[in-house]
């Protein structure tokens, strides 16, 4: 499993094709706005970034909020981390 992070809307185009079945995707910073639109994969969004932007309760069902501790845990379970920005 590879963990991908996305920190802004424009970075989606860079990684859209590179996310394999079984990979995980973390949305952080301005990347959490991607949680407003339908995506071809499920995502995990950093809760403090979601709340800072007023997006609590506004995100699609395929986006789940997580804490930094869960982000760290995902890193340890992934083979590697790939950051898209």
């Amino acid at each position: 499993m590879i963990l991908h992070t996305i920190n802004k809307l424009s970075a989606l185009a860079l990684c859209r094709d590179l996310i394999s079945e079984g990979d995980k995707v973390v949305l952080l910073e301005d990347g959490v706005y991607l949680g407003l639109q339908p995506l071809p994969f499920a995502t995990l969004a950093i809760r403090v970034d979601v709340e800072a932007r007023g997006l609590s309760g506004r995100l699609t069902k395929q986006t789940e909020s997580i804490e930094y501790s869960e982000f760290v845990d995902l890193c340890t379970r992934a083979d590697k981390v790939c950051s898209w920005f």
Partner: protein
Amino acid sequence: MSSILYVFSQPPHGSINAQEGLDALLMGSAFTTCSVLFVGQGLMQLIEGQSTDELGTKNFSLGFGALKDYGVNRIACSKPDLVASGLNSDDFVIDVEPLDAAGMQLLIRDHDKVLNF
């Protein structure tokens, strides 16, 4: 005295730039006629319910409530960008006038200077 249109196109919190843009708008409105147009991700500055206590950035969206008191003339946003965002005006901290392309072009034409942030 030159009138100034401020165009806000950046989302909040990802960088300080949006916040520094609002500072410039408030300063400008003390000196001359100012309006503001939110476009693209700039609309995200307006979302109600931003809660930044834990992140530690400044919730400057609260400052938009003061725009009328500061005498800011027109407060507008791009209607196409609003529709594309999936949000609507009810999601915003203040009343904003959605403008179509022709309306935005007129707004730009009606001001002497444009400051983009």
